[in-house]
């Protein structure tokens, strides 16, 4: 196995988020990441199983963990936030509840000791190191304003995920800043996009997505960076529904963190699957590297008080 990381693509990276897989697998060798797809993997159950049957919701990810264990991986990366969420929650539940673990092991007919660490994509990138990533880049962006959108699953519940600040996460912002982008401060970084309701309650998803688009663009963002297929699909696929429902005219490209990174590592739009988006992403990919106009001077402001400086 060596230093290989177990790679769990999950169903979405096979389908709607094929470009997420494409871009991740394209950048991995450039960052010295050795990915090995877990053999015979199954669906993690995602947002559906845990609403229907608790045991099923635990058994499905447990089987994936058991397979990774059997293959001898130290850690597994699940780029989809829903997948990493389910795997981490399952690992936590099995560790907390030995009886459940025994039961689940009987169901999946494999031992599941919980020896494999599960990581989301941002954790893997942070472990590579921001300095190393920046050093591997062949070109840097020229200050494009990007809204880093984490969604709800990457950081919550904080006690189990133990990743970043659940209310004001910074990891994606730090990576993008190192790539030369200007991550914007906005309010809804960890709000829900509507997730799996995209099909059944499109109206709800449109409202939630509208809020995200509204706040990110009010903060000056020209594009999004995401690390979750659900977030990407709701923001990208539903953007025209939002525009139709609310009379808006948003055209905010929604790129995976792996795609932003790929562009800076010198990969082409085609190699990163930028042509597979609904809102034109190739355009912004060009703009991001253009020489910016000289910044206009800000009018001087005189606040009454020094403000919170702690």
């Amino acid at each position, binding site marked *: 196995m060596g230093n290989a990381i177990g790679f769990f693509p999950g169903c979405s990276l096979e389908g709607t988020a094929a470009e997420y897989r494409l871009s991740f697998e394209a950048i991995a060798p450039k960052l010295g990441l050795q990915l090995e797809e877990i053999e015979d993997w199954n669906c993690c159950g995602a947002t559906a199983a845990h609403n229907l049957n608790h045991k099923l919701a635990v058994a499905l990810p447990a089987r994936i963990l058991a397979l990774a264990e059997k293959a001898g991986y130290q850690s597994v990366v699940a780029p989809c936030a829903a997948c990493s969420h389910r795997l981490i929650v399952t690992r936590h539940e099995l560790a907390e509840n030995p009886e459940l673990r025994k039961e689940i092991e009987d169901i999946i007919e494999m031992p599941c000791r919980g020896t494999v660490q599960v990581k989301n994509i941002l954790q893997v990138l942070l472990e590579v190191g921001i300095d190393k990533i920046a050093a591997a880049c062949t070109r840097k962006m020229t200050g494009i304003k990007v809204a880093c959108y984490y969604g709800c699953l990457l950081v919550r519940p904080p006690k189990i995920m133990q990743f970043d600040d*659940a*209310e004001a996460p910074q990891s994606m912002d730090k990576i993008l800043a190192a790539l030369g982008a200007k991550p914007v401060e906005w309010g809804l970084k960890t709000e829900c996009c509507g997730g799996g309701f995209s099909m059944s309650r499109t109206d709800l998803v449109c409202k939630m997505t509208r809020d995200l688009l509204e*706040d990110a663009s*009010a903060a000056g963002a020209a594009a999004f960076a995401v690390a979750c297929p659900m977030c990407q699909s709701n923001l990208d696929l539903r953007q025209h529904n939002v525009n139709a429902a609310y009379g808006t005219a948003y055209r905010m490209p929604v790129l995976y963190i792996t795609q932003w990174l790929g562009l800076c590592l010198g990969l082409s739009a085609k190699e990163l699957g930028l042509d597979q988006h609904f809102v034109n992403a190739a355009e912004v990919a060009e703009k991001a590297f253009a020489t910016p106009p000289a910044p206009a001077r800000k009018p001087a402001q005189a*606040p*009454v008080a020094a*403000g*919170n400086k*702690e």
Partner: protein
Amino acid sequence: MARVGVFICHCGENIGRTVDCAAVAEAARKIRGVVHAVDYKYMCSSPGQNMIRDAIRQHKLTGVVVAACSPRMHEPTFRRATAEAGLNPFLCEMANIREHCSWVHEDRAAATRKAIDLVGVMVEKVKRNQPLLPIRVPVTRRALVIGGGIAGIQAALDIANGGHEVILVERDASIGGHMAQLSETFPTLDCSQCILTPRMVEVAQHPRIKLYVYSEVEAVSGFIGNFEVKIRRKATSVDSSICTGCGACQAACPMAKIPSEFNRNLGPRKAIYSPFPQAVPNKPVVDQENCLRYKTAKKKGTKAAETKVCGKCLEACPIAPKKAVDFSLCEDTFVTEKVGAIVVCTGFDLLPMNQFGEYGYGKYPDVIDGLQFERLASASGPTQGAMKRPSDGKEPKEIVFIQCAGSRDNAKGIPYCSKICCMYTAKHTMLYKHKVHDGRATVFYMDVRAAGKNYDEFWRRAVEVDEANYIRGRVSKVYQRGDKLIVKGVDTLSGELVEINADLVVLATAMVAQPKTEHLAQRLSIGYDAHKFLSEAHPKLRPVETNTAGVFLAGACQAPKDIPDTVAQASGAASKIQGLFSSQELERDPTIAHVNETTCAACWYCVDVCPYQATQKKEIKDRQGKLVKMVATVNEGVCQGCGLCAATCRSKSIELDGFKDEQICAEIMAL
């Protein structure tokens, strides 16, 4: 030959219901050495005590065993009764057949057998008890008060007015504490400064109070009645003996952008400053971190006095011929004071900003805490009392108060209620409405806790007269949109989501212990709880004492507290100290450890293990003054009789009076 009397208490039904007390008395009579055994409904009652006194005289008892409740409750009662009958009080012992027996068992026969065993054990101990005489230690009748907030001010004034000297140590450049920062106080809306400053002046003028401001307690040694305290006096670079407090130096200082701690960073101060206009003493100090001359001197590795940089304050100082601003006063100095008692009044802090990512606290300038709001509302504050928000100085028309920001929230690690927030938030809505008549104040609350005299009436007034909009529910998120703060919350009474476009958000952040208090507590050997609040000796009956004799508590260093409670506790601590200082000498419980110097091997295990630094090293010299050997010795004034040294001693050279090995072994053998 021992003549022991055994007295079995029914404690009403508490013991009698589960233990057959008559059977216990019957069994006790058969124990060797017992000459008298009776049971009675209430041994602690006056007739009960008389039974003990009479029996001692009549049967010429040499020891008394009272089988009743915990010795924590009534041991002093029965020992006093024993002493009144002419027997040494330490020849009376208690067998706990309530907490250790009747309360925890159901089977009457088995509980009775256990009670008989417990009595038998104590009889064997009492047979081996020795009369002990109380220890007398001299008392230095001066008190140290640590912290110059309202708690420390009240305690210092009460002790000083009682005729004793007080040393008051304050960390900042002025006394006054948090109360000086408040605009108005609940439930009367009287101006905080107006009621506090007369007390501050009284402290400054009091002939029996010695005030050390800009100072900290560095080390404490000794014991009740005999403490020695080392105080660090931080360098002020101002000769306070000649400074008149004219303020010319502050006006001249060019460093105008240092955030003022007193104004909770909402306004600037200078590098030479006194924290607020009514400061006591009104003498400025130089903040070496921010002073241009000190910074330059540090960079160049020279002394500030020899560095010819800036010096605007020096030029401006009108005192002649010697200036009051004096850069040669650049080193901290130390003083040592002897005191007999200590009151700790170090107050509280607020939960730090980085704890509230969901509310953008620390990120958005218009999300502030309750103390910052106090400064905005205060006439001496950065806006001279005008309601202006920090970001752009606009008058907020829509203001949201979020209660329980951290308090009662296990996710923030704070399960407790901060106690004062319900009341000050109600006050804030009133202060706001009185200044911004067309504004709207909304409060998100979990419960309104307004227990106190005139408190409930007060918050109802905020709702009914000043039209505060109270919403029962929590806020999930605050974020900035343009120049508005979007507050997303829920009204749990109607079940609806609430979204408010606010101009200013005020968080009632949780009260937490002062971060430095933990360190102080360790120096004083006093306890603190999981949240670093200092521990009282008993939560109900000894609320101002600590477990270290001679050290007392007052104010929010013990637990979140409002001003009336703080003042009451400070006066309580002061009266405890008056009691302590009422005689020249102090009587102490003689159950302390003693060292057998002939067998002590000087391994110093006992010295390491003593939590009170009572075991110390002692030199034994011959007549010529030549060192023969080193042994451990126990300081009688400090020893609390915990027995750790006796248990640790490998050569069995330390024994605890009243709990000698012989007694403990006899107890075990009796089982």
